[in-house]
């Protein structure tokens, strides 16, 4: 009897947010999908479908921005894994009280608009900025040309998506039982062996969720390349925006968006299907 009640209540409770997402998330996505197979520069989906937009993507070299978006997102994700691991380990196993301080400090940055934080990096790194300006006035000369290149865009992605890697990773590592590590050490495993044979596989759900989040969000990012990169490379989200706004070509913009959505969506869905959400979010057994 309890189970039947659960079923009905589950459906009812899911209704409000499902309705919200149906009308303002799934429906717009369907519209974008329809627009992507419309002829060039039309503003209605009631035209004869064709695949001209995808032809334009190939012939006009739009795959270059796709390449940049994906490779910078990949680089940022790999760097994030390396940078966040020790800290996540510390938060999960070592720090104690300091974990809370760190968590609050990192979460607070999330609440500051990302363009303000990126603009802060521009002020810090630009010629006549915080670093160059003070170094020039004290040492006579400072580093120049730190902005407007590809590595600084990747740095911006690492900076902005840091929390999205750190917290899932810390959650994943906290799921590694201390007994298992202790047992491995007692049996003579080296530190490296403990890391490879115990930590990595047992923390895998956290690693997966963190990497997926960082990669997916970074692949669709735009502000980093605009503000820090000064358009040294054009990213895909940028091309999508231009096609929709200045270009007034909704079908092309939609097709570009679809390419990104399908690539990123496949990665996300395949990745998420390997994770047991109930466990990683802390269900009591």
């Amino acid at each position, binding site marked *: 009897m309890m189970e039947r*009640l*659960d079923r009905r209540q*589950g*459906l009812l*409770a*899911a*209704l*409000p*947010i*499902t309705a919200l*997402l149906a009308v*303002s*998330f799934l429906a*717009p996505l369907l*519209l974008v999908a329809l627009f992507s197979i419309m002829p060039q520069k039309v503003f209605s989906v009631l035209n004869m479908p064709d695949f001209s937009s995808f032809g334009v993507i190939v012939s006009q070299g739009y795959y270059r921005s796709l390449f940049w978006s994906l490779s910078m997102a990949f680089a940022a994700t790999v760097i994030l894994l390396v940078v966040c691991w020790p*800290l996540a380990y510390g938060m999960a196993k*070592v*720090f104690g009280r300091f974990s809370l301080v*760190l968590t609050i400090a990192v979460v607070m*940055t999330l*609440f*500051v*608009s990302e*363009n*303000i934080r990126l*603009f*802060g*990096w*521009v*002020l*810090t790194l630009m010629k*006549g*900025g*915080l670093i*160059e*300006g003070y170094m020039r006035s004290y040492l006579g000369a400072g580093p120049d040309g730190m902005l407007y290149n590809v590595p600084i865009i990747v740095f911006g992605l690492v*900076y902005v998506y840091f929390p999205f890697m750190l917290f899932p990773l810390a959650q994943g590592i906290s799921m590694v039982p201390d007994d298992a*590590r*202790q047992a491995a*050490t007692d049996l003579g495993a080296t530190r490296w062996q403990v890391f490879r044979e115990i930590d990595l596989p047992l923390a895998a759900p956290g690693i997966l969720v963190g990497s*997926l989040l960082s990669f*997916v*969000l970074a*692949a*669709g*990012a735009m502000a980093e390349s*605009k503000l820090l990169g000064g358009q040294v490379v054009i990213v895909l*989200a940028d091309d*999508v925006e231009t096609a*929709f706004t200045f270009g007034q070509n909704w079908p092309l*913009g939609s097709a570009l*968006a679809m390419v*990104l*959505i399908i690539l*990123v969506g496949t990665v*996300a869905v395949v990745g*998420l299907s390997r994770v047991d959400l109930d466990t990683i*979010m*802390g269900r*009591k057994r």
Partner: protein
Amino acid sequence: MRASRSTRVALLVYGIVVIFLLYLPLISVGFASISKARYLSFPIRTYATKWYGEALASSTVIELFNTSLKIAVIVTAVSMIVGFFGALAFARYQWRYRPLFQKLILLPIFFPQTVLGLALLIWFNTIGIVPTWKTAVVAHLVWIAPIATLVIAIRAYGFDPALEEAARDLGASTFAILREVTLPLLMPGIISAGLFAFLLSWGNFPLSLFTTGADSTLPEWLYAKMVSGYSPLVPTLGILSVLGSFVIIAVAFTLRWMVKGRQAE
């Protein structure tokens, strides 16, 4: 297995360096906001608070604050309500489509926000709605309501279904259980979700960019000025926006502390 002393110290130092780097850009913005010069250049020669005076006296700025605030307040209220029920369906009730529902909730979070904003723009255009700040509320909700759901779901995972069953055995109606048992138990999660919702909406830029129409939020205005035509008000407004967030956090923590104190008595 306890980490050795040197490992602890090394990790601690690393953590402090990371915190410093996370806040370094805000320090730069802070310094820039109190520089007197119209065209900023470090090292700063003379300090002045005149840009703050100018910002607070400007009607444009007040309008930007108002728009951002209106959007954030409505997004918060809706996210808390929708997220409460969503979290029960996500974590608590065992129903047939739960795995599918969980994926639906995660999808908007795992989605490039710029693309989402543009998709909503052509959607509103197609169904004949002129974008204003109200459409931005909808755009924010697509991303923030699922996050609120997850935050409350974490709390819902931790509570014991036996409490609800006990209430039912004692003859409480479904609605009474929801109001007297479930809601109070999830309250801390609902409040954190509300805090998250407000702050994420307040600072959001990629979703607002395409969905506010002629209205403009604070982060949008800042971005426009950063990309073209620098204004000395940019760092000032940036800091004011950050201060707005931190005041809300401080208020939330004070309230929590007061409530806790009262419960302890």
